């Protein structure tokens, strides 16, 4: 045997061994249990804080099924995990929380998820109608049960408003801006009274708020064709945002300048989904406690974020997992979760619950946040998002608006950039 052939044979067998390892990793997951078998344990997979700790204990007591809560702190670490589970066909929990952007993206491959409708009672009338509809995949299957919603309000600095000669009481402030035109007027008044300071952080936040108030189709039509250029909702939101450019401090949300801006008072107001309250108070620090308050959002209603619970096809216990998801999203559970960690209910009964409506937030001058956010949420129009809504919104719409806001391009150029990038980001 010559040296070269032996070497190549060795290489070939090494290669074979490697591909075998790879092949092994790719298959598997055939361990479906017999139908009707009761699971000993179910895994609930969430990110951030859903407030399920106590609820899960109660469910364990009621059913005798052990529940493991698996939490990922950051959403940006959560998505790659889910993708890995789905791509390899193993590892996902039995009940998986899907955030709005993720849900829409995963909808283009609905067969990864169990149709919940046949496994649970009919709840189609129980939740906010638009939220319920968003939980359905294009093929009609019920992919997710609604958990929370990122209902929108405006967080504003009372001390800065006062210094600029504006009212500070939350009802009076809400009355200042029933619509976006009056918001613009208020911003101008603030600028004048404060010696040229900016009212808001960025116009991208305005576009987010305005987009959800339009209702109907946004970046996609019902057949999921990209209609960025012709969609009236998108154009309206664009125009609202660009008109506010004179009020903007040109600070990108989540940037270090943005976090620092809360203490510096770089802006006097920002758009607050309910889950943002914690971030505002953290960035502003203990020394600014009581200086912030919460008012209604211009134009009424709005949404930013929010999630669903789904059961992946790879789960071994479809029926039991669906029952658990049903329990975690019912009215009582949603109120309990809200009290524990603050995610806003989407169940119509929970939204009417007294302990929800009477909730006040100490950091924000004891604002009745339950009532404010609850009212905002009930005004949201039903909408259709489409598969890559999040990517189009963030990487085409938002970036084009920022380029315009920063003065890098004209409004017309920014719009052209958005139209072009929407096609690229929206392709699926």
């Amino acid at each position, binding site marked *: 045997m010559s040296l070269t052939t032996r070497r190549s044979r060795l290489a070939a067998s090494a290669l074979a061994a490697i591909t075998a390892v790879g092949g092994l990793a790719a298959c598997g997951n055939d361990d479906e249990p017999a139908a009707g078998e009761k699971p000993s344990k179910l895994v609930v997979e969430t990110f951030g804080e859903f407030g399920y700790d106590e609820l899960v204990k109660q469910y364990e007591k009621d059913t005798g099924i052990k529940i493991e809560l698996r939490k990922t702190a950051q959403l940006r670490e959560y998505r790659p995990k889910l993708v890995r589970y789905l*791509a390899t066909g193993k590892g996902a929990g039995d009940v998986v929380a899907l955030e709005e952007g993720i849900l829409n993206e995963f909808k283009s491959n609905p067969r990864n998820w169990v149709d919940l409708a046949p496994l649970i009672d009919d709840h189609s009338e129980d939740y906010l109608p638009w939220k319920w509809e968003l939980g359905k995949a294009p093929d009609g299957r019920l992919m997710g049960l609604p958990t929370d919603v990122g209902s929108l309000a405006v967080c504003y600095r009372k001390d800065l408003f006062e210094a600029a000669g504006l009212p500070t009481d939350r009802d009076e402030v809400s009355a200042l801006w029933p619509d976006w035109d009056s918001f613009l007027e208020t911003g101008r008044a603030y600028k004048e009274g404060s010696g040229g300071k900016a009212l808001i952080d960025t116009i991208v936040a305005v576009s987010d708020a305005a987009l959800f108030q339009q209702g109907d189709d946004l970046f996609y039509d019902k057949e999921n064709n990209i209609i960025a250029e012709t969609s009236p909702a998108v154009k309206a939101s664009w125009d609202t945002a660009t008109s506010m450019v004179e009020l903007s401090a040109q600070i990108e949300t989540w940037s*270090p*300048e943005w976090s620092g801006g809360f203490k510096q008072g770089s802006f006097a107001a920002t758009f607050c989904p309910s889950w943002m309250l914690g971030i505002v108070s953290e960035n502003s620090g203990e020394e600014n406690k009581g200086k912030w308050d919460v008012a209604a959002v211009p134009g009424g209603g709005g949404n930013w974020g929010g999630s669903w619970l789904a059961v992946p096809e790879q789960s071994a216990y479809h029926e039991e997992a669906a029952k658990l998801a049903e329990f975690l999203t019912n009215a009582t559970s949603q109120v309990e979760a809200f009290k524990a960690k603050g995610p806003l209910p989407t169940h119509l009964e929970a939204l009417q619950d007294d302990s929800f409506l009477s909730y006040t937030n100490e950091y924000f001058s004891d604002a009745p946040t339950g009532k404010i956010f609850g009212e905002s949420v009930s005004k949201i129009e039903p909408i259709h998002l489409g598969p890559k809504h999040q990517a189009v919104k963030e990487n085409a719409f938002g970036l084009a608006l920022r380029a315009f806001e920063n003065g*890098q391009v004209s409004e017309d150029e920014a719009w052209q950039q958005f139209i072009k990038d929407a096609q690229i980001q929206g392709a699926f």
Partner: protein
Amino acid sequence: MSHSTTVAPPTPAAPPSPPGDTPKRWRLSLARLDIKYSPYLYIAPFFLVFGIFGLYPMLRTLWMSLHDWDMIGDHTFIGLDNYTRLLTDEYFWNALINTFGIFVLSTVPQLLLALFLANLLNRTLLRAKTFFRMAIFIPNVVSVAAVAIVFGMLYQREYGLANWLLGFVGIDQIDWDGQTWSSWTAIASMVNWRWTGYNTLILLAGMQAIPRDLYEAAEIDGAGQWRQFWRITLPLLRPTFIFVVILSTIGGMQLFTEPLLFGNGNIIGGTQRDFQTLAMYMYEMGITNLNSAGYGAAVAWALFMIIGLMSLLNFVLVRRAAK
């Protein structure tokens, strides 16, 4: 060999081996096996690890790049379509230009500075040599994420140190991540800060390998410091220098973390893709966008081939230098 003793021989005519002879022959053949195959066993761990974590992913990526590959859905074979798409993809070329732009801005000043510093550190009369040599390497030990975050703060528009300092000489606030040139400069400065010391040490090692008597002879002949540097140090340092250039090239082509964190973690790299590098574009297509994983794989292979091409170019230069 040994199986003839355990399995019953088919015919009694088979010669039985002498009882005392078996262990000896066994040991002999073991020794032969040892000589023949042990070397393979010794190097096997590397090839096994490389095979699983290097070769297999590479081949798998090649396979993916020939498909319309949805990370969580269907895979359809499309041949070389992804590669032809690359040729006309404006954003791919944009990323390529960004990568080369930042590469030039970071590598050229970095290597010149490293050469200068190494020459300083190589002086025989320098005090506290070890201290300086250690100190210059420290930036390389700091985690790249920490570097990017700190530099991101320096280059902030409102409260950044860079703009504050520029304010003293009457230069208006610069929106560092808002334009191509300023973002390239800012990112290149991070790379320079981090890698200059590293390259200095390698060049210094190369300088110390140059025989001292050459300098002594030159000094006797009346050559000054500068002339010694040009006539002795530089020519003899060439192999080391080319090694450093190759390393910088590979690193520069794969630039990812600095520009990513400079843009607050957005994979697009600025509102206008001003500083999206090839590695970032690969990540955007292959990982952020679930449904274009195949195209992302094609970008990865294009990047691989570009690095290969650049290394080949360097190799040719080395050969020419050797002649």
